[in-house]
């Protein structure tokens, strides 16, 4: 048997190795709406950061804001915010529509 190419993996069996390749999806591109945090309304309670499924709310000292690389636009942060400080705004309304961080 002649094998013309090198094996892509050094392992004999189906092992995955995060040190070799840690994958990441461009979930920021999934968004159709973007969370916008009103810095003044936000009382830094942290609930949005706790309930955010991708855990992508950034702690910015006295308020939180989403990491747009990974925010999927689900809207849980806006729904759970006790002060209503987060609004879900359609992506199309931003000059940087589809922006990452």
């Amino acid at each position, binding site marked *: *048997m002649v*094998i013309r190419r090198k*094996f*892509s*993996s050094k*392992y*004999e*069996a*189906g*092992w*995955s*190795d*995060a*040190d070799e390749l*840690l994958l990441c999806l461009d979930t920021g591109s999934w968004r159709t709406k973007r969370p916008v945090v009103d810095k003044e309304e936000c009382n830094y309670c942290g609930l949005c950061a706790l309930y955010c499924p991708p855990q992508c709310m950034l702690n910015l000292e006295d308020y939180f804001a989403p990491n747009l690389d990974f925010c999927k636009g689900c809207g849980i942060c806006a729904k759970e915010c006790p002060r209503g400080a987060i609004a879900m705004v359609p992506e199309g309304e931003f000059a940087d529509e589809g922006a990452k961080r």
Partner: protein
Amino acid sequence: MKVRKGEIKVITGNAAAAYGAMLCRPDVVASYPVTPQTEVGEQLSRFHADGILDAEMVEVEGESSSMNITAAATLAGGRAFTATSSWGLMFMYDAMLQAAGFRAPVVMANANRETPGILAVSCGQQDMVSTRDSGWVLIVVENCQEILDSVIMAFRLAEDIEIQLPVMVNYDGFYLSYLAEAVEIPAREDVDQFLAPLKLQPERTKLVPGKPLGCGTHGILVEFMELRYKHCAALERAKQKLDEIDKEFGEFFGRSYGGQIEEYRTEDAEIVVLASGSAAGTARMVIDTKRAEGLKVGLIKLRVFRPFPRERLTQALKGKKAVGVIDRSVCFGWNCGPIYMELRALSPDIGFVPMMSFIDGLANMDISIPHIERVIDEVYAASQGKSYQEVTWIPLEE
């Protein structure tokens, strides 16, 4: 022989399998009772309770669990053993495929019993045949001593860094499982020495807390094909490795079985009978009788079914005038025996000589001396140019 003589005990085949496993110091042992292998689990539990076997014993709730448990234990870096038979083997089939695909070096004793379809609590190789495509190494043995010795050799083969495959040691249920014979049990220290080379080789990949290695990735496209290729390549390497290990075992313990196949009086034979399991023992006696009558007949005992010992068989059968294969199972869809069917694939290499399939021994039907005499007579007639029947179900023709 390098080591001291072992203790001789009269024990059953099941007990021999248990002794073989105990001597190799497994870390995890799982057992579930199924006739005719139940005694293996009982004997291992007895060893553990008496402080002879220091292993984690798991009394599982089903064979599927035994296979999952032992495979996971080996992939965490340990040594694991289990035993089963027929329906238990089938119930763990999904886990067996996973063990083979994950290259988990599990060793399992299987007491051959009839499956599938008709419920038969009796001997037959159909259960082993049903797992042909599982990716396991399938060894078949002839007597109780060979069971014990093959379990030890199985660990040596399975955990070899160039192999890393699960190995099944098959022995005839009822004929060997319950038969008590004199078996020489090696000293544990000598078995430790025989298995010592495994410790000197590089450590195999294993699951480690804190290390981001995942066992069982989702394989896709060419990377998956590479893994399959590696698996097939390992099975290929297992053939020669089996021969080497058997030779080394012979030098160590004074008992050798020929490796992939045993050739008995085949050098100058004109016709050959191929058999496996305990039937090979009976066949040996008939070969001697026929030889005394002047017939040039030999026996090939098939010791490994997967990987199929293609090269050794070709070399042994080249130039022979006719071959008869005794199968203790059937090959559904080809209407013949499975070993016969696979041997036929070697016809271009051996030469297109008469090959005959003899199906016998299903469900505790004895493959008796008259049956084997008949096999030899018919193979001889075929070798002389007489017309012959390709497939014979011996008991149905009486």
